[in-house]
């Protein structure tokens, strides 16, 4: 089975938030709801300050806790490409998926009274197109595709400073980190 995922090269992300805006536009979301969010990390001291940005959405995990824990089966993995999808008709608004997701990738839509999340722009994917966030990325640091193909092309890891252990849900996410974000290198860069 193919497992679609994202690769993000944080070394060159400039926090323009085009991905975030494109996602909101595509999903017709208000400014208060973000299915994709650019996070900001900073630290260090003069003369060695550091900063990096990380664009995150649902990671369409291989072993998603949201799918496992959803009491109604509203959240499910699409068999052909591993995308985690949500059926709003089955959602009862218990919001247990919000508690379950270690990446905080699930939002509650107040008007619809159900949760919402990144669906990998599944309609565009099915038409052979790219997700809106990937196309919008000015720096071309956000990539998508089969996670194993992405691993071969870019390398990277789902485990960087600030993220939960990838063993929890096995996210379909690869990150090429800045040196300060590499796990175990914290002392060297004076975090």
């Amino acid at each position, binding site marked *: 089975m193919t497992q679609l995922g994202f690769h993000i090269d944080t070394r060159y992300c400039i926090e323009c938030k085009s991905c975030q805006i494109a996602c909101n536009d595509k999903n017709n979301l208000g400014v208060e709801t973000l299915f994709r969010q650019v996070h900001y990390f900073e630290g260090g001291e003069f003369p060695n300050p550091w900063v990096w940005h990380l664009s995150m959405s649902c990671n369409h995990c291989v072993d998603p806790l949201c799918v496992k*824990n*959803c009491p*109604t089966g509203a959240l499910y993995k699409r068999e052909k490409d591993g995308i985690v999808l949500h059926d709003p008709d089955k959602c009862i*608004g218990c919001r247990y998926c919000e508690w379950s997701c*270690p990446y905080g990738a699930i939002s509650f839509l107040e008007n619809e009274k*159900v949760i919402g999340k990144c669906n990998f722009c599944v309609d565009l994917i099915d038409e052979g197109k790219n997700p809106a966030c990937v196309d919008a990325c000015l720096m071309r640091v956000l990539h998508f595709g089969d996670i194993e193909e992405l691993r071969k092309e870019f390398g990277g890891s789902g485990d960087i400073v600030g993220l*939960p252990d990838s063993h*929890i849900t096995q996210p379909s996410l690869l990150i090429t980190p800045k040196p300060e974000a590499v796990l175990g290198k914290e002392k060297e860069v004076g975090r």
Partner: protein
Amino acid sequence: MSIRDWALIVFTILAQTSVGALWVLLVTRYFAGRKYEMEEVDRLTDRALMAIGPVIVLGGVASLFHLSRPFSAYLAVVNIGTSWLSRESFFGAAFAALVIVFAILQTRKIGTISLRNVIAGLTALVGLGLIVSMSSVYMLPTYPAWDSWVTPVTFFTSTLLMGTLAVGAALVANYVYMQRKEPDYADAQSMLLRGTLRRIALAAVLLLGVEFVVLPIYLALLAAGPRAALLSAQLMAAGPFSWALVLRVTLAFFGAVFVSMFMYQNTINPGQEKMLGKLTYVAFVLVLLAEVLGRFLFYMTKHPLT
């Protein structure tokens, strides 16, 4: 704190009280039945048994306020294969149905004793399933403050503590009712009531002892855990919710130790039933408030991993 959060507090407290009350009532019936006529035991426990169903139903109704689409709540059992929340919903509904059926059969003496015993045992087991599922719902790696052995241990201790004192209060209320409506039986019931309340008082002290041993271990575990766990410990022990922790410990101590010891003292000699009744009510109310505060802290001090 939103109505959604309060819905969960009310549901978990009422569900645990009702399961604990059933367990305690069944144990009471078993031991009392070895010393006294079953008719006397029935007079002691039947009305208390009738109260359990409405308590769990009330808890179930409260839990609906946690949902944004309460009318679709029936869908919550669909994913029972993998979701602890589905299992909790299933066991909650099954427990409510079984405990109501058992109470009707028992109080109206329908069916054989063996049949009623089988249904009682099954209801107790389903109650166990409910508390196990309820604990497992919160054991999420996302929230280090919840993801440890402390969650099931505290849930089971709360279940037993609230159940024990709820049964005490219900038995006292039953005795007061009998004094007014069936005075012929009231005297015979006095010894049975005092003996039961004596054990209830001792059990309350013991169970609070468990809570008081677990609490410092829990705080130490959080302090030694990841950053999210440390933040939870800080919120609870030194942050904006420390008042709730102090109040919770104080109320629990007064209810389950101080008042319970007076309860114990008043069970020794007959003629103290009035005072004994008041003390039992006070102990139950204090412990209930302490447990509500404990649950408030449980939800308010959770901190996500990221």
